[in-house]
């Protein structure tokens, strides 16, 4: 599975838009890009997933360029409750790999008042 690289930490202020970029240079044709969020003392929680172009849900947007070697998670107007660790993952769509989740170090986002 493609290795992902993302910033170790980011700081932001309430009300700002936050963009976290992840690089996955060795992504394969049948790989999906997925983002998870983790609060202290809790398990990770799914945020968003995409294959190409742009995906948006009620929480975030995910931008994936045509070459798919990177992706950007966009959090609009963050609040203090968005302080968490954000993980970018690549998942492969084959029978015995189809669910496999390999987490990297994640990006620790700190939102300040």
């Amino acid at each position: 599975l493609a290795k992902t690289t993302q910033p170790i930490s980011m700081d932001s202020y309430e009300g700002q838009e936050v963009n976290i970029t992840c690089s996955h240079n060795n992504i394969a044709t049948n790989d999906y890009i997925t983002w998870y969020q983790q609060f202290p003392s809790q398990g990770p929680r799914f945020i968003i997933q995409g294959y190409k172009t742009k995906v948006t849900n009620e929480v975030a947007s995910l931008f994936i360029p045509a070459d798919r070697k990177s992706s950007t998670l966009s959090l609009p107007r963050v609040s203090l409750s968005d302080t968490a660790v954000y993980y970018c993952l690549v998942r492969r769509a084959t029978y015995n790999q189809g669910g496999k989740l390999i987490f990297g170090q994640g990006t620790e986002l700190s939102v300040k008042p």
Partner: protein
Amino acid sequence: DVKVTQSSRYLVKRTGEKVFLECVQDMDHENMFWYRQDPGLGLRLIYFSYDVKMKEKGDIPEGYSVSREKKERFSLILESASTNQTSMYLCASSQGGANTEAFFGQGTRLTVV
């Protein structure tokens, strides 16, 4: 609501003991996972199961084994617990396929003394 339940929230065991961590999911998911999480190391995959009785080693399987006799239950076994296995253990499950969301349990904080 999807539920992934881990049998214990906190556990203290002695060095050399055989330890069983149990995980049960109620959504008929094909995939189940065991991770450990340590400060500065992120989430590391121990074992992954994509079907009953099917398992695959993750990044750090040494010192661990798993059992999946029924679809809803995935057990992590520490054959002879050691102090370096003190950690937070997280179980997760997902439906088959790379484009599906994984759900995590609340975690078991295991301390080996």
